């Protein structure tokens, strides 16, 4: 896995992690292979893709919105709808309900079902539920009637 971004030493003194645009990130779609772009929060939503050369023309690019039902900004159908319509372009939804170390099967299912039911009202569906593999003992494929993908974390000690 190749990570494109500024190292901490490079981002001298600066305002926010990620406020600077790495030139390689701007041209990332010219790379071969699978590309995953982690686009953070912000008032502009999916318009951040304007910063990626060729984002509009790429037939393969998909914009996936990750929704965690325990986040206050998306903890009700109304708030989820607000969030998704504010984003702009959304091609798919990933249900990512979890409560960190306090995650339970009930929390994941309750939240992800709410997300699924809400986005169906918008004519979309949830592609899959993403869950940290450390919870694979309490959450199994088929649970909550949503396809499951387990996440392997590569930076488990990163505190955010």
């Amino acid at each position: 896995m190749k990570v494109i971004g500024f190292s901490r030493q490079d981002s001298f003194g600066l305002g926010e992690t990620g406020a600077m645009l790495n030139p390689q990130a701007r041209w990332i779609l010219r790379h071969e292979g699978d590309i995953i772009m982690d686009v953070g929060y912000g008032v502009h939503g999916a318009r951040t893709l304007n910063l990626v050369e060729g984002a509009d023309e790429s037939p393969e690019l998909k914009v996936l919105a990750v929704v965690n039902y325990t986040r206050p900004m998306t903890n009700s159908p109304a708030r989820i709808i607000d969030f998704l319509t504010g984003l702009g372009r959304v091609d798919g939804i990933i249900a990512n309900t979890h409560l960190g170390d306090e995650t339970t099967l009930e929390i994941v299912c309750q939240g992800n079902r709410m997300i699924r039911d809400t986005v169906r009202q918008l004519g979309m569906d949830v592609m899959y539920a993403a869950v940290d593999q450390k919870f694979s003992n309490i959450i199994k494929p088929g649970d909550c009637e949503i396809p499951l993908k387990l996440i392997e974390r590569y930076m488990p000690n990163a505190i955010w």
Partner: protein
Amino acid sequence: MVAPVTPKSWYLPSKPHKFCPGCGHGIVLKALGENIDELGIQNKIIFGCDIGCSLLSWNFFACDSTQTHHGRTTPVMVGIKRSRPELITVGYMGDGGGYSIGSQHLLNSAVRNEKVTLILVNNVNYGMTGGQMAPTTLPGQKTETTPYGRDPELTGYPTKGPEFISTLTSDGAYVARATVSKYMQLKRFIRNALRNQLEGNGFSFVEVLSTCPTNWRTNAQQTWHFLEDEMEKFFPVGEIKSPFGKGEKTNVAD
């Protein structure tokens, strides 16, 4: 292969610089660098930068430089100039550092006709901290602290810095607004601002309209459109006050 000419006063070990692709700072610093070379003042320059994206210029030049606090670049330059008048002080800041937290220093230095040269890069947002509203943010513009668009009823209209600064200055001051979309003019205005200090005339101030595609979330086309068709419409480009004759005006109403 023709290599682009790098100003001699640029500090090569800090290149490539860290400004975002599409950022206007690189253009402004090139114009400043070329002027420093052509005027032969590399050894006399003191370059001061603020907090914000201008901070990235702290080791940009092969000139003695000092990084200050947010909004305090102006008084630090004043302190240096008053102690060592033979040095050429160039203060470099953004619209936040200049018109917000630094505004009282800016306007008082203008009133006192301090013989410093200040370059203020205006990209209508607080870039480094993630895109909050700035004094120059346009009405209706979405930022992280105006998520529903800037409402002039609540937060006033964008600051027109050179305009208000020039009313405070006395004879010998040089006040102008340039834009990164017109490089030769930008270079001329910075040259005049430096010349003003070299001749000991008075306060010199150049605001430069600049681009921030990262926080504007604009592609190349949208970026230039926003600069040329929105910002330059709102903020007139030209020399507002100049001891060197009538002054150049692009679209300033006479």
